[in-house]
């Protein structure tokens, strides 16, 4: 495969495009609302109207506003239809043909803040290309960054570019990506092997960004992994994906097969000396496997229990070899950085957090779905402008970020900019990007108890503070919730939180008390109210 061949595929793809294209979302959210049948009906209606020469219908990845799915958009013009059903699909085609029917599905304004305020890097092709065809990805520039990397950059130059871009890990902790790559590149394993692992074990309840990226633009992730492998000197990669995401697994498998067939993965990629293979490892439903040492144990076929660090996986990971582990979204950022240069990326965001972040906006909010915004955007902008506030106009009480490891941020702090440091300062974390909006009807004690129940069940059982501590914390929270707790219980709750936080082995235990601590900090009156015996949520 040469650049010319890649260009030829792109040109063929462009030439085959028809003047009008109807895009229908076939990501998991819309598929659950009959998206596949809508796609079929659209195709049938185009055929019936004799428009096949001018109009094409294609299934695409996530169009972001999941709550209004299945979504259908028409190019050019961008008319966007919401909640399309198989029955109303022909009306969309009729409108395209210039004869709008009365029963056409509702149209959304594509210029509304939810879409207009977004800044797309990771999701730039999500919702516009067919995720099941590699040609569609190549037509929008896919694998060109890999070509450029292999032929024009040395591994050191790639690492330097990633370092200068200021990209930080999108899995939650925000470790500088360039630094991690440099460590792996420097490390020497026992037998010279190195590995690149893509962490797609998106376990935080309420987070679905990685799933959407894998379902909507899998080649972007593979390209990022290949560039990383070249930079650190690895020739084998693993994509570890949650078993709960069958569609993401299927599309990634397909993408790997297609890339192999075109010689974009495998041996001597782009006629260079670089070989890279990717295998998928399917997770089996353990939240702790998102922790990197537990994930390594799981890929090796063991129970997913973490081990103390150091040594870090960058020096001693899979089978004792240096291993680079990055999140799906981190890998999805790599190709644009190589394509547009590190300075371009570093120009977006805040001083300490560069680029954009994808959030999964859900809960009691009008616009549920994916949003990608520059780092430093305030929570208020995300929740009120993009999210459209609470449906029915009630007030927002808090947002929860970072899943079971994060915290609840009250409405009065909504002017906090979203970046790694600011979120830690207010007692939460960036996390992988789940953002759950809660209105006045949600009891914060119940939320804390919900997350503690999660951590109690998901604790791997290896270290005592987490295994026993989470059970005791859950017991105390249940007692408070039931209205039978005393001041002494509350004091013990606080004390135990600190203990579990400071003495647990891995991130799961260390961050498990965060939802309790943040609700204690911002909503002490709810705990106090329940101590006095006022059972139930505060309205």
């Amino acid at each position: 495969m040469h650049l010319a061949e890649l260009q030829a595929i792109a040109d063929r793809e462009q030439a085959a495009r028809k003047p009008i294209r109807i895009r229908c979302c076939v990501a998991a959210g819309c598929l659950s609302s009959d998206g596949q049948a809508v796609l079929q009906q659209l195709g049938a209606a185009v055929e019936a109207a004799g428009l096949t020469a001018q109009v094409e219908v294609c299934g695409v990845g996530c169009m972001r506003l999941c709550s209004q799915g299945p979504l259908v958009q028409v190019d050019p013009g961008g008319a966007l239809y919401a909640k399309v059903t198989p029955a109303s699909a022909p009306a969309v085609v009729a409108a395209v043909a210039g004869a709008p029917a009365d029963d056409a599905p509702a149209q959304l304004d594509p210029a509304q803040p939810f879409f207009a305020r977004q800044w797309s890097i990771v999701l730039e092709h999500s919702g516009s290309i067919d995720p099941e065809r590699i040609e569609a990805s190549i037509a929008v520039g896919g694998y060109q960054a890999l070509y450029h990397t292999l032929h024009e950059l040395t591994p050191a130059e790639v690492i330097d570019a990633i370092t200068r871009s200021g990209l930080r890990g999108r899995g939650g902790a925000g470790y500088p990506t360039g630094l991690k790559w440099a460590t792996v590149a420097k490390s020497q394993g026992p037998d010279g092997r190195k590995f690149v692992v893509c962490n797609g074990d998106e376990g935080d309840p309420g987070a679905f960004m990685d799933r959407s990226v894998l379902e909507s633009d899998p080649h972007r992730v593979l390209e990022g992994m290949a560039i990383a492998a070249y930079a650190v000197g690895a020739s084998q990669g693993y994509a570890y994906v949650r078993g709960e995401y069958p569609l993401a697994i299927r599309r990634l498998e397909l993408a790997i097969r297609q890339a192999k067939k075109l010689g974009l993965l495998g041996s001597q990629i782009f006629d260079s000396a670089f070989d890279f293979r990717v295998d998928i490892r399917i997770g089996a439903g353990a939240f702790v496997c998102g922790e990197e040492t537990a994930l390594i144990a799981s890929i090796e076929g063991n129970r997913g229990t973490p081990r103390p660090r150091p040594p870090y996986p960058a020096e001693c990971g899979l089978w004792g070899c240096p291993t680079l582990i990055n999140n799906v979204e981190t890998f999805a950022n790599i190709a644009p950085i190589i394509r547009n240069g590190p300075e371009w990326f570093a120009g977006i965001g805040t001083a300490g957090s560069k680029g954009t972040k994808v959030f999964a906006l859900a809960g009691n909010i009008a616009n549920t779905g994916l949003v990608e915004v520059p780092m430093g955007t305030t929570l208020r902008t995300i929740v009120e402008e993009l999210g459209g506030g609470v449906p029915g106009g009630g007030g927002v009480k808090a947002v929860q970020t970072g899943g079971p490891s994060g915290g609840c941020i009250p409405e009065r702090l909504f002017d906090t900019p979203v970046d790694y440091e600011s979120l830690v300062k207010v007692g939460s974390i960036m996390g992988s990007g789940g953002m759950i909006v809660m209105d006045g009807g949600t009891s914060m004690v119940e939320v804390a108890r919900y997350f503690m129940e999660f951590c109690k069940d998901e604790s791997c059982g290896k270290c005592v503070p987490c295994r026993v501590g989470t059970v005791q914390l859950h017991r105390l929270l249940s007692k408070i919730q039931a209205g039978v707790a005393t001041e002494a219980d509350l004091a013990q709750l606080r004390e135990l939180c600190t203990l579990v936080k400071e003495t647990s082995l891995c991130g799961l235990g260390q961050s498990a008390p965060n939802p309790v601590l943040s609700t204690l900090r911002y909503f002490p009156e709810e705990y106090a109210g329940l101590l006095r015996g006022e059972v139930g949520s505060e309205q």
Partner: protein
Amino acid sequence: MTAQAAVKTQRASDHPSGDNRFKLLEATMKRHQYQPDALIEVLHKAQELFGFLSTDLLLLIAHRLRLPPSRVFGVATFYHIFSLAPLGEHTCVVCLGTACFVKGAATLLVALEHEAGVKAGETTADKRLSLLTARCLGACGIAPALVFDGVVAGHQSTDEALERVKGWLDHAPR
């Protein structure tokens, strides 16, 4: 592969029961060259073929991958996806992710538990229905979400969910 190992493979694929599923399982293990680190992949395949992981099946896998049975049992019980008991004819999975929780999934679960007469994670005595829970399906945009026999349904109300399950719990002869 040595001649001896080849004979072994031959024997295993001709499982005495004549059950073709063992042949498919054997093929998966062979594809992974009987490497112990393929254990989780093999367990996924075994569950896909047999529906659940019986003790005999775990022992067979342990034997073929040359692993102690304790290790295989340890891994199979560690991960939530693996089930060591057979499921009912139908399954209903309630997503308990944060978004679904905020949208009332807990109430939905209580109603379903009441209707089926079993707790979450259990199967009805007549083996008609298994009521299960999931940590998060990643379908937060359409919360609360349920999975009926493998098909995700979003924006579920309690009435809608009960309606579906009632049909399955109907004790009339099929």
